């Protein structure tokens, strides 16, 4: 049965949410996802996030979700937030096909980079990335990724000047 990849719409939100949770389980951080289906549907409609859903016949087998980021050095680029293929459908080239669609979009839009994150123990994925010529930004450039959560935001915002 042939693979079919479609662009995600708000109607796919529930299916995507299931796969987001499956991916978080795989990443050993099952409590990670906290957004609701409605919020995801709304954000898909407003293009805060874009997605691809892969089907084998009528069976959903995988997805990718991405957003449009902007570098003050090189302009707009895609940040690939999630890429996932369900365990029963692996080793069929579906992951690579999803990757290709994202890469095609990047190429068509003349983008100079495509970025994503991966957990350091996911050696299968890391080997695949290195084979395609991707660079680990910390190993090659010394870049670290920092995050400020809700509590930190509240504290910092509390003293902002009134504009």
């Amino acid at each position, binding site marked *: 049965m042939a693979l079919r990849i479609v662009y995600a719409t708000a109607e796919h939100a529930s299916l995507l949410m299931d796969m987001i949770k499956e991916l978080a389980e795989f990443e050993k951080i099952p409590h990670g996802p906290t957004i609701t289906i409605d919020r995801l549907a709304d954000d898909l409609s407003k293009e805060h996030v874009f997605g691809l859903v892969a089907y084998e016949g009528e069976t959903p087998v995988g997805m990718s979700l991405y957003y449009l980021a902007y570098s003050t050095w090189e302009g707009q680029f895609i940040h690939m937030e999630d890429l996932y293929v369900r365990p029963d459908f692996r080793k069929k080239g579906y992951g690579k096909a999803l990757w290709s669609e994202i890469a095609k979009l990047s190429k068509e839009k003349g983008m100079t980079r495509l970025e994503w994150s991966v*957990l350091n123990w996911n050696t299968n994925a890391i080997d695949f990335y290195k084979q395609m010529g991707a660079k680990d930004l910390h190993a090659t450039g010394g870049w670290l990724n920092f995050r400020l959560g809700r509590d930190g935001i509240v504290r910092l915002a509390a003293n902002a*000047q009134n504009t």
Partner: protein
Amino acid sequence: MSFTIIPATTDHAAVINSMTHELAEFEKLPKGPELSENELREAIAEKNLFGFVALIEEQVVGFVMCYYGFSTWQGKFIFMEDLYVRLAHRKGGIGKALWKEVAKVAFEQNLRRIQWTVLDWNTNAINFYKSIGATDMHDRDGWLDFRLFRPAIAKFVGGNSDNGV
């Protein structure tokens, strides 16, 4: 000297573009910036980038530029792309004030995170980030950031057959 902070507009594109180059010099990556002033202006006009500038007597002395990202775990968030204060105006609280304006935007929109990157040798910045409660995502969870550059994107696409999208 007192300063004010206002939202960045397309009128600030030229000075922000210059300061992007100054920041890249500081980051020891002077060849990094390839974006023109016009492209930056367009990005601000189309709201692909937003931010704030710090002014002392009507001169821009610092800036912060951000965009909105999306986490499938926590929803819309702010990615802080650049924050810079000119050398002569450091230690006056301008950097922290720019940070606070970004935090205020995140707070008002009920966003759950702000993200950014920093070079591992920039210990002053890293110490500041830790002092405001920020987390190094590699230390905490083991996240690594990967990037595929244009030649490798083209090569990757070139080698795969069309699957009908």
